[in-house]
Structure formats: C-alpha cells, structure tokens
C-alpha cells in the first residue's frame, strides 16, 4: 500500500474497536481474535477511525513524537500491512474528515516507540459472538412489546 493519500476504515461489520486510556482494543467478533496497540499505535488507530489518510497519520505522528519522518512512514506502512492482513481494516473510498488537523493539538514532542500490533489468539471460543452470527442484521431482533427475560 504505497499511495499515502489513501484512507482506511475499520471493518465495522465484524470488527469492534475503541481507544481506551490511549490503548486501541480491537476484537474480530467473527473469530474472537483480539488486538491491542498502545501509545503511537493507539494514536494511529484513532486517526484511522477518524478517516485520516496515511499521509495525515504519518504527519500527525511525526509532529507529536521525536522521530524522523522516514522512520514513521516505514513503521506506519508496516503496521497498516499487518492490519490489512489481519482483516481489521479495508481501504476506504470515502473522503477524509473536514478538518484533518483537528485531532492533533500541538504539544511538546515525546519519545517514540515503534507501534506494535499485539495479537491474541488465545480466547477465540470465548470472545467470538456466541455463536458467530455476522448476519445478525437479518433478524427481527426486538419486539418492543416484550420485556427481556433472564
């Protein structure tokens, strides 16, 4: 993936994700594999979710961290490749956010650690939807006239 103007989007139908306390937690609901990325990785995921292009992400990381752009570009491309291989993101056809810089308040540069996608394949049977049901949307799930029972 060389075109830095491309944007990614989380695969929202099967992938649940949220940045909590700076750490991105990502779960593939179809197979229960879960992922974490902290610090730089958390920022990158946040920017991916907000619709930023790869170029904007690389710039954002370079502005915030004490690191050369070339290093960030290489790390981001490697990370993105892994996220694509793990089926967590897809290339997006949508435009970016209205204000690409709004996620990045200026501040002192901090020490850089290369982002890492931690992969956990240990709890698949527990964390996959029980049972895995990607087609949930087809179901007339709720009858408002009835109370849920335990």
């Amino acid at each position, binding site marked *: 993936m060389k075109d830095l103007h491309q944007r990614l989007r989380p695969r929202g139908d099967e992938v*649940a994700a949220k940045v909590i306390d700076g750490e991105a937690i990502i779960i593939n609901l*179809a197979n229960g594999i879960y992922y974490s990325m902290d610090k730089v990785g958390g920022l990158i995921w946040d920017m991916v979710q907000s619709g930023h292009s790869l170029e904007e992400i690389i710039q954002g990381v370079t502005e915030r961290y004490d690191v050369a752009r070339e290093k960030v570009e290489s790390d981001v491309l490697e990370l993105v490749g892994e996220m694509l291989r793990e089926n967590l993101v897809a290339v997006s056809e949508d435009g970016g956010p209205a204000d690409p810089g709004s996620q990045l308040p200026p501040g002192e540069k901090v020490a850089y650690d290369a982002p890492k996608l931690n992969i956990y394949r240990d709890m698949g*049977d*527990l964390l996959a939807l029980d049972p895995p049901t990607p087609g949930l949307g087809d179901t007339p799930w709720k009858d408002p006239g009835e109370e*849920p*029972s335990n």
Partner: protein
Amino acid sequence: MERSRGGAVQLTDPVKKMAFPLISCIVPVFNGERYLGEALESIFAQTYRPLEVVVVDDGSTDGTAAVVGAHGEKVGYLFQPNAGVAAACNRGVQASRGEFIAFLAADDLWHPQKLVLQMSQFQNRPELDLCLTHMKNFWIPELRAEEERFRNQPLAQPWPGYLPQALLARRAVFETVGLFDATLRYEDAKDWFLRAAERETVMELLPDILVYRRLHRANISREKAIASPVELLQIVKASLNRRRRPGVASPQFLKLPDSGRGEKT
C-alpha cells in the same frame, strides 16, 4: 431433543456413590413464567442426585413466583428487586450450599445427563475446577420462519458454551475467581471466564451438546446483538491491564480447552 450419547452414564466408582457431592442448581429469572416450568423440569429430569434447586427471582412482576410455588419444597425461592442476571446468579451462589454450582437460564433446557456427564469429569480429574459443555439453539414454534432462515448458519450449529448455563464449577472457584460483575449488563459471563483463565483455572469442555438455548422474541442475547460492543471492549482492556500488573502471576496469553474449532477467519 437430541441425545448426544446413548444410554445412561455410570459414574466410575460405585463405592463413591455415598459421597456424591451436592450440586446447587441456580436459576435466575426475570418475568419468566412462560418457560420456567420447563426449565425446572429439565433439572428434575437430571440423572444425577443430590441436587439443590434455588430460583432467584430478579424482581419479576408476572406469575414467576406461582410457577415456583407449584413445585413445593423441592425448589428454594429468593426474591430481589431487579438488579440483573449477574446479581441474581451471585445471590444464588451466596445463598446455596452445594459443593458444586450450576446455573440454568429460566428459558433454557438441560439434557438429562448434563450434570452426570460433567460430574464424571470431576471424578476422573481431581484437579478440575470447572467443566463446560457445548450448547445449541432451538426456536419456539412461532419463530419457525427464522429457524428456517438460519438452518445452515452458525446460529443453528453447536458452539462451546462459555455461559453459566453450561457450567458446572466447584464452589471454591468462586472464592478464587470471585462472583460475576453485576455492574456489567451483557458481558458478565465473558468477564468471569476471562478472570478464571487469568487464574489458570483448570477447565474441561465436553464435546457433547448438553444445553439447549431457547430462541424466542425477548432473549437478552437479541438485545445484546444490537447493542454496542463497548462493554466487550472494556472487559478485554481490563483483562489486559490485570495481566500486566507487576507482581501478578497471570500469563500474557491465556488458555482455554481445545474445542476443535480451531481458528476461524
């Protein structure tokens, strides 16, 4: 109803018959008058004894109490203001006295050999802390069209039951792992099993389908299916945080019994 194994199961050692431990069967229920009677019958149909049955009524306003009352002294009854299924399960654990604990949702059914097959695992493996079974959904007759639609899909296939209704656990496990987190609305069971795995609890997963989950119009799982997965993400984050705490023996990667499903993508 399917029978996953033919014939009755004999526990291994007849000498131990006098020492069969008491299993407390805890049934949390909220407005469950429609199916509760069938759930209780599936407990009484168990081939294992001795059993203690405790219904925890989580603030029902329907005829739940009357269904329990019809069973007389065979069923213990506790009432609490509505506090959720996790709180009801916890109340049952605290109020019961069995050396082993099992749960049954008020709209689900156990296979008659559920408990005897699980207990035989504890006899074979004294180190075992908890035993799970596979589960399968069944649909109420009014939802036949939905059943047809999902006939060949995962919703109609058996799956490893990481849910209380598929669990038989030593009471001592609740002392080490703790109770269910009653602040969680949907993911209290997954949170509990995560904590159990962090403690390296010894688990067994039976290949047999011994729990049948009834799909009707008001399952909590339907509500969960359309709810945001934020709670799931939060319990995974909390688990990772616990595993990283200094001085904690919990491993980075946890271990579950092999279900034979492998990794699905």
